[in-house]
């Protein structure tokens, strides 16, 4: 993990550490940990039976997820307390590290192929999905780029081409895996970062058209993608094959009704919902905790995003602000896209739910984002942090 080389703790001594912690957005920290707790509970419920089947251990995924959560929390704390400059100085290292691992996934035997896609890097008992860290690396790079080249961003060759080239390279590597969803997420990040970074709207509109055309080409060229898209448009037409996941997800949610079947009582996860503990964990939650549980999760995620945007808007430094904005986007887009898939309003594309879905890479990535936001929250609203939090 490329962020592993951490700087020596910035705040010196107990008093300054306490001060640093207190100056953070503790509400953001609270909802993050709450969400992670719900995630652990749901992973246990969703994966227990399958884990017993395949690994002979009911707690296989649960234990691993706890490990990820602990590692993620440590990462978050480190990033939150580290000097910001140190983090920004890592941007190229991050960028090259991500490109390098993306290449390694494709060309080295360490690349792990699951269901026809090489998206993972095998590292002993764990596998790493570089795509998750690509998002963070891209955001840090773009934030730095737009803030430092602000006077140039409105010109095409210097202001538009480099970020597009970097993003394009990453998207290309993702498409080779193939990971269409991942590439789409990076493209969205680029677009929204450009938007906030001040790129001319003309360019953005132009790129939107280009992206739309490119996506259409990609979809038309791959029967797999077009089938998935068609299945999404009418999942019930081919409910046993391509529309399967969507239909099963809707069945699960529908079965949950208002109050749910009760924790651990869901039936869809038993046989029907593939990867119930991964991307479709919200379907399991919806079945077991009902609409009430969904409202709870929506509210928690809502509070999380609200705090993220507040932190973002309170940044005075453009680089800080864009970084915060990007981290917010990673979390927010992840949640929205995942929910859209689970609720049958977007085609399945393999986007996990931040903190809730099982998986090491995205949990670490989400904690990384929150860690950076917590770090930034220390300077939210100038030096007047206490007031900032009270507001």
């Amino acid at each position, binding site marked *: 993990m490329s962020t592993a080389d951490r700087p020596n703790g910035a705040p010196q001594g107990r008093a300054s550490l306490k001060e640093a912690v207190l100056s953070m957005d503790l509400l953001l920290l609270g909802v993050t940990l709450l969400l992670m707790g719900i995630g652990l509970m749901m992973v246990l419920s969703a994966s227990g039976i399958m884990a017993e089947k395949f690994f002979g251990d009911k707690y296989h995924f649960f234990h691993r997820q706890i490990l990820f959560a602990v590692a993620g929390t440590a990462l978050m704390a480190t990033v939150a307390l580290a000097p910001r400059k140190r983090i920004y100085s890592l941007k190229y290292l991050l960028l090259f590290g991500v490109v390098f691992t993306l290449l390694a996934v494709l060309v080295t035997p360490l690349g792990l192929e699951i269901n026809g896609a090489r998206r993972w890097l095998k590292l002993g008992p764990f596998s790493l999905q570089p795509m998750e860290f690509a998002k963070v690396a891209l955001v840090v790079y773009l934030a730095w780029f737009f803030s430092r080249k*602000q*006077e140039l961003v409105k010109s095409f060759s210097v202001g538009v081409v480099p970020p597009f080239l970097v993003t394009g390279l990453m998207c290309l590597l993702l498409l080779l895996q193939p990971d269409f969803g991942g590439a789409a997420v990076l493209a969205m990040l680029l677009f929204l970062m450009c938007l906030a*970074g001040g790129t001319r709207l003309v360019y953005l509109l132009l790129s939107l058209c280009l992206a739309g055309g490119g996506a259409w080409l990609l979809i038309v060229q791959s029967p797999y993608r077009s089938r998935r898209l068609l299945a999404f448009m009418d999942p019930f037409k081919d409910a046993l094959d391509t529309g399967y996941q969507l239909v099963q997800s809707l069945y699960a949610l529908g079965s949950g*009704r*208002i109050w749910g079947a009760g924790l651990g009582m869901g039936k869809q996860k038993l046989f029907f919902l593939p990867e119930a503990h991964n991307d479709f964990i919200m379907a399991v939650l919806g079945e077991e905790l009902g609409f009430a549980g969904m409202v709870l999760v929506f509210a928690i995620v809502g509070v999380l995003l609200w705090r993220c945007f507040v932190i973002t808007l309170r940044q005075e430094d453009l680089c800080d602000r864009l970084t915060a904005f990007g981290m917010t986007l990673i979390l927010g887009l992840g949640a929205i896209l995942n929910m859209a898939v689970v609720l049958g309003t977007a085609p399945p594309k393999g986007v996990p739910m931040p903190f809730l879905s099982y998986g090491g890479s995205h949990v670490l990535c989400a904690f990384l984002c929150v860690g950076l936001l917590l770090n930034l929250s220390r300077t939210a609203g100038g030096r007047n942090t206490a007031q900032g939090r009270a507001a």
Partner: protein
Amino acid sequence: MRARKANKPLPASRLPKARTLRLGAAVDGSRVRIVLVAALMGLAWLGLLGRAYWVQVVDGPRLASLASRQHVASEYVSGERGRIYDRAGHLLAMSVEFKSIFARPLEVENPRAAARVLANALSRPYAEVLRRLTERRKFVWIARQVGDKAASVVADASLSGVYLTTEYARQYPDRHLAGQLIGFVGLDQKGLEGVEKAFDGLLAGREASFPVQRDASGRRLYLDEAGREVDIDGGDLHLTIDEHVQFVAEEALQAAVRDNEAKSGTCLVVDVASGEILAWAEYPFFNPNTYRDSSPAQWRSRIAGDAVEPGSTLKAFVVAAALQEGVCDRDSLYYCENGRWRIKGATINDTHKYKWLPVHKVLRYSSNIGAAKIGEGLGVPKYYEYLSNLGFGRRTGLPLPGESRGILREPGEWTDVDLAAASFGQGVGVTALQLARAYLCLANDGVLRPLRLVRSPEVEREPDRAVFRPEVARQVLAMLRDVVMEDGTGTAARIEGLQIGGKTGTAQKAEPTGGYGKKYLASFVGFVPVDRPRFYIQVMVDEPQPSHYGGVVAAPAFKEIAVKSLAYLGELPDVGPLPAAAMEVAGDAENKRIVHKFEVGENAAGSVAASADRDDGRVPDVVGYSLRRAVALFARRGVMPAVRGEGLVVARQSPAPGGSWEKAREQGCVLWLARGDERS
């Protein structure tokens, strides 16, 4: 980093004034745009919440009912029926997967279009298919056990309301081999006869109406409601039958029945030490693959189901009982009335006329009168007690449908004539299984043990029971030896180099009108070798003609089975010229396919008896071996060597030692013989 810092002044110098202004404007401009993005995301989030409300609360009941329907009847699968194996693991019965097509007419959206597709794919009349698709039923079969091509066409068409399911058809690779024993299953995969019926509970695949999950390797998982994995495949059944011995027995039995123009015949081969039945042959044969072309008379098992009057084979037991009770000893003399004895209005005849015979000769010459007199001395209660202890009148408990318990009347109903008749095997009904079990008692030092037909799973068995003292059993065995080895009735069963013991039986069959007529049941039972019994072989031939003596009709079959089985196991003794029978092990082109299985079977021989010769899968060096041993070694691998020259010892061989058996089979083998003076 450094390069970039160096770059910095360039743009700055290009737009020096605008910089600070722009930066401030950018921060403010970005604030507006970020708020815009936040608002959009908030809207999306609220929209998704609304969608969740719709899916869960408004549309929830409908989706929930769809989901529960899928819980109850998603896929209709039946597990694979278990296989039946012989003792060495050769397949006797297996299931082959087929696709069947069914419809739920209520779910068929466009019956006409569906019927057109189905009629084309299945080559069936359109009208008939349409009629089925529109039946007012929940479930109709469209076609069962269709070909792969038709199934894939139907699957690809993915017609609404039309489903494919997996069914299995039963196949018996060895055709008629042990047909009556194995039995068969009906179209619905229910065992209807034989062990298929008796072990239906074990073999039958269970049906799953719950859904199926495939893991990454494509293996199907069946989970019950609580998520536990369920194995819906049936269990396998391993019989004690040895495919090869079975084949040899069937071949010999067929020859005995055909040559003697008999009606039918049965044969059992049992491993004496374990009581395991190695062969269960019944002629006419029954091929379970085509059971619909056969009649119930052909597929019901006579060995288990028919009680017959055994005739003289029962004499061994009256003698044993009398010896045990001290009524007589081996040399006690009985007057045999010169071949004709009248008691209480009945006449008992002997085939040959005898005056005084000692007990052991009564058995050797099979004198009815002598046996009747021994029985008379024993008395009804004692004789009944022994017959009962030997298991007559009681089922053997083998797991088979329709086993007869035989006919053994209560002792109070017996007259003196009944006792006399029962002493030489008339008026008592026994099944072939009961007779085999009783004879095995003699070979096991007088201990009655249950027969075994199933190796696994474990079957509950009766406890052993001591019936005779060991010395009594051995004494009778010695008398049985004399039947074959001396001037007895069973000399046709002799095998050179082996001590054989046996007993002939020539039972007159009772007429339906009463009394005994001109029809006979000829039988021969015996042990190979008799000094240390290894196999028990029992041959019964029903209504042979013109010759009807057990010693003539059944004994040769006994001999052939014994020789071929021993040759196959490599246990023929090393004496005398090779009997022609052993050379025929791999003969009979008609049955080549069955024999071929032994050729390819890796461990064909090893299971019944651990072979003395190491078998490393290569052609062994047999130079210096006796011809018999060499032939046995080759025969076990299904290769019948040609023999050149005269003598008893192999002088040269082709192919050379160490070659592969496949090559040997292709090229053929030749053994050159030399006069083996050193072995003479």
